[in-house]
């Protein structure tokens, strides 16, 4: 199994991580190594084995739907660099 520079670009687009030519050169062999390393898993017999999804099996943990201990807007924005009207200011990117 290979991992080409095009593959790097493809998955980087998915992950919204910008990659330039140098990055593609850098990551292709590293990812190829990882892919080949983990490939052995595909061959292991796991017939009848359920996937283990959690470190501890707890069923949906619920509480009463009552708001409590909510941070005020001012508190939430207290360490934001640029804010206005109770919102975080972001660049106009549309």
């Amino acid at each position: 199994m290979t991992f080409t520079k095009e593959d790097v670009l493809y998955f980087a687009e998915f992950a919204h991580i910008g990659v330039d030519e140098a990055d593609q050169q850098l990551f292709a062999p590293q990812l190829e190594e990882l892919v080949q390393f983990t490939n052995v898993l595909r061959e292991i017999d796991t017939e009848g084995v359920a996937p283990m999804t959690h470190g501890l099996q707890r069923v949906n943990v619920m509480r009463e739907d009552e708001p409590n201990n909510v941070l005020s807007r001012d508190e939430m924005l207290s360490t934001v660099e640029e804010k206005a009207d109770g919102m975080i200011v972001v660049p106009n990117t549309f």
Partner: protein
Amino acid sequence: MTIMNQTAAQLRQALQAGDVTVQEVVAASFERLEKVDPQIQAFITVTKEEAMKRAEELDALDASARGPLFGLPIAVKDNIVTKGVKTTCASRMLENFIPVYDATVMNKLEEAGAVMIGKVNMDEFAMGSTTTTSYFFETKNPWDVTKVPGGSSGGSAAAVAAGIAPFALGSDTGGSIRQPAAFCGIVGMKPTYGRVSRLGLVAFASSLDQIGPMTRTVEDNAMLLQAIAGEDMYDASSAAEDVPNFSEKIGQSIEGLKIAVPKEFLGEGVAADVKASVEAAIEQLKELGATVEEVSLPHAKYASEVYYVIASAEASSNFSRYDGIRYGHRAEGVENLSELYRQSRKEGFGEEVKKRLLFGTYALSAKHHEPLYVQAQKVRRLIAEELASVFESYDVIVGPTAATTAYGLDEKQEGLTAYMNDVLTIPANLAGLPAMSVPCGLSEGLPVGLQLIGKHFDEATLYQVAAAYEEKTSLYEQLQALSGGANA
């Protein structure tokens, strides 16, 4: 004995008796920090003013209002959120991030009367085992400043080993508390998954991450775990399990306790000196009355592969929050939203992080999701079941914590050795079992760590065995005497 050469238990006694004030203890901590940290660089942020102010407040408290960790200094790994204090995860992405709330463990430490002295260095976003992937600087091993302290909780381990604080908090996803504890000659515990709240622990792999105590002695370790453990309504993955007295069995004989040593843990790839040290420790455990038998964990050899798939996949999901919008690094000069995301993440993340996020994305992609990611989860269950089966007949599993002692800052572990490191520590994370490292000797001046793995929620038995071993070998005193550079 100087203040900072005392254990947390000794300090607590001295503080309660009024032999020393909190301000004196905290001042001594900073004095040591200022003297030693320039050489080891464990600290990213030092909170001297806040700490001294808090020390003053604590000294004014009525004796009846003192918590169990009254006046004790603690260093906190920089992936644990601290209100008003920069929390960087040693990444450019969060270089200037100041949280607006405290992690649950921080609230518990505050209630217990502990004093945070600063935030310590780590591998970027906890991805690594040397602390060299930190965006800021490398931390050095106090035993030999040309060597790594281990990782990713390298700063935590170094701060304790260098006598700057008797307590540190680390986090462990694939060995990140235990391995640096082993490399730095201290005690590190990764509790049972769910034992300690993850609210405020910056998420790496949510089904594996745990915060845990790092200290110089077993008694201190149990004391710190006692203060931070417990179900948390803000962490739905935290366990409903009652918190027992973790120190209760410390001092009890381990006569008749059944110990299992997986043959895979002492195989090829483990350095001869480590093997010898661990085998000697196992002999000590036999002399203390435990029975020791060899077992096998056939699927443990896949721990590394399983870990890389699962941890990277979970990380790729968790890290989508770093979008440059609400917090964290935001790229400048971009023309559209897509570019804002891409540039912010390109600039904000280091190489190791990007590599794992890309791999995680690959593992979760449509074509590979079932045959790789879900498959890894199945193998995870096989590994967990094999461990569970061992615990049907045994109380504790024992082996080395790491395949070698600390290596050079410029060295890279490869091949079988790197592999063995993963095989040793990762199974406990996959199965959610408690696991700790205690020092078991020195090899060429560098500490060796003995790992103990226990049944779910049975940290108390791990402390029992570790304490019995620690007492019999007087290893803590030996290490204190020998640590020379570490505690000079």
